[in-house]
């Protein structure tokens, strides 16, 4: 028998603005991503110095996740039962380019280890897992667009197989200053009664 799954909370970060559960929560007049995301960090008072060492993709993922997690009640769920499933299009391309630039010139060849460690898209899931000590299943898909049907099927299967009791899901993409994070927490109980289905997820994703 299928489990009744709900969306416990969701966050959207795009166009210098952040929404929580469909309500605008933070807006900046700053169009530059790096300045905007630093403002968001201060606004939500993360107190996590490691944030500043992350690349842009991970900063975007961590802020979006933070807000969704803070607005979900996961206190009763064991950390090894909380999964992370994310998707994006550009993988870690922004940081790949930065690393490539640092090794282009053989006369000025100083590849940065702290840049190199972010040349994988799934590091964003890792950074969220480290921050929140989530130890459940995690997966990162690189696809041409947010495949909501695949996400629905994959996450539902994780619940059905009994591997997780909650899951952070979403689309987190960053490429050449274009960015978008849509993240949501799926769990088995919710007084808010937002059903986890394809239609609802599309509505969350499409809200501008």
């Amino acid at each position: 028998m299928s489990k009744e799954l709900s969306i416990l909370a969701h966050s959207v970060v795009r166009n210098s603005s952040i929404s929580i559960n469909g309500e605008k929560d933070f807006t900046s007049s700053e169009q530059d991503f790096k300045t905007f995301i630093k403002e968001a960090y201060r606004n939500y008072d993360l107190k996590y110095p490691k944030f500043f060492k992350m690349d842009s993709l991970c900063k975007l993922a961590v802020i979006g996740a933070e807000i969704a997690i803070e607005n979900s009640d996961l206190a009763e769920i064991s950390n090894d039962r909380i999964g992370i499933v994310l998707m994006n299009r550009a993988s870690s391309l922004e940081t790949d380019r930065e690393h490539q630039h640092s090794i282009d010139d053989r006369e000025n060849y100083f590849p940065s280890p702290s840049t190199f460690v972010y040349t994988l898209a799934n590091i964003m899931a890792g950074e969220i897992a480290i921050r929140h000590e989530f130890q459940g299943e995690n997966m990162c898909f690189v696809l041409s667009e947010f495949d909501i049907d695949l996400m629905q099927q994959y996450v539902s299967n994780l619940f059905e197989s009994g591997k997780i009791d909650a899951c952070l899901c979403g689309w987190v993409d960053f490429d050449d200053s274009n960015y978008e994070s849509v993240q949501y927490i799926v769990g088995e109980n919710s007084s808010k009664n937002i059903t986890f289905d394809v239609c609802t997820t599309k509505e969350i994703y499409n809200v501008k």
Partner: protein
Amino acid sequence: MAELEEELKSQIIESLNLEDVEIGDIETDAPLFGAGLGLDSIDALELIVMLEKFHGIKIDDPSQGKDIFESIKTMAKFIRAHKA
């Protein structure tokens, strides 16, 4: 005399993206790792690159790093000895 130490503090803040740390926050004698600035293993690699990039010193034996990068003082001492 302390010019190199101040320069190193500035380079570390920039190279390691220590956003909330200012030059005055780093004590010359304080440990850089562990209880000090709380640097990690990736930061250690970044310090090796920093030494080569800004001071032209290549560390061939990474095991030397523990002593060299103990503090700003030990880094400065190593650089001066290398350039003498």
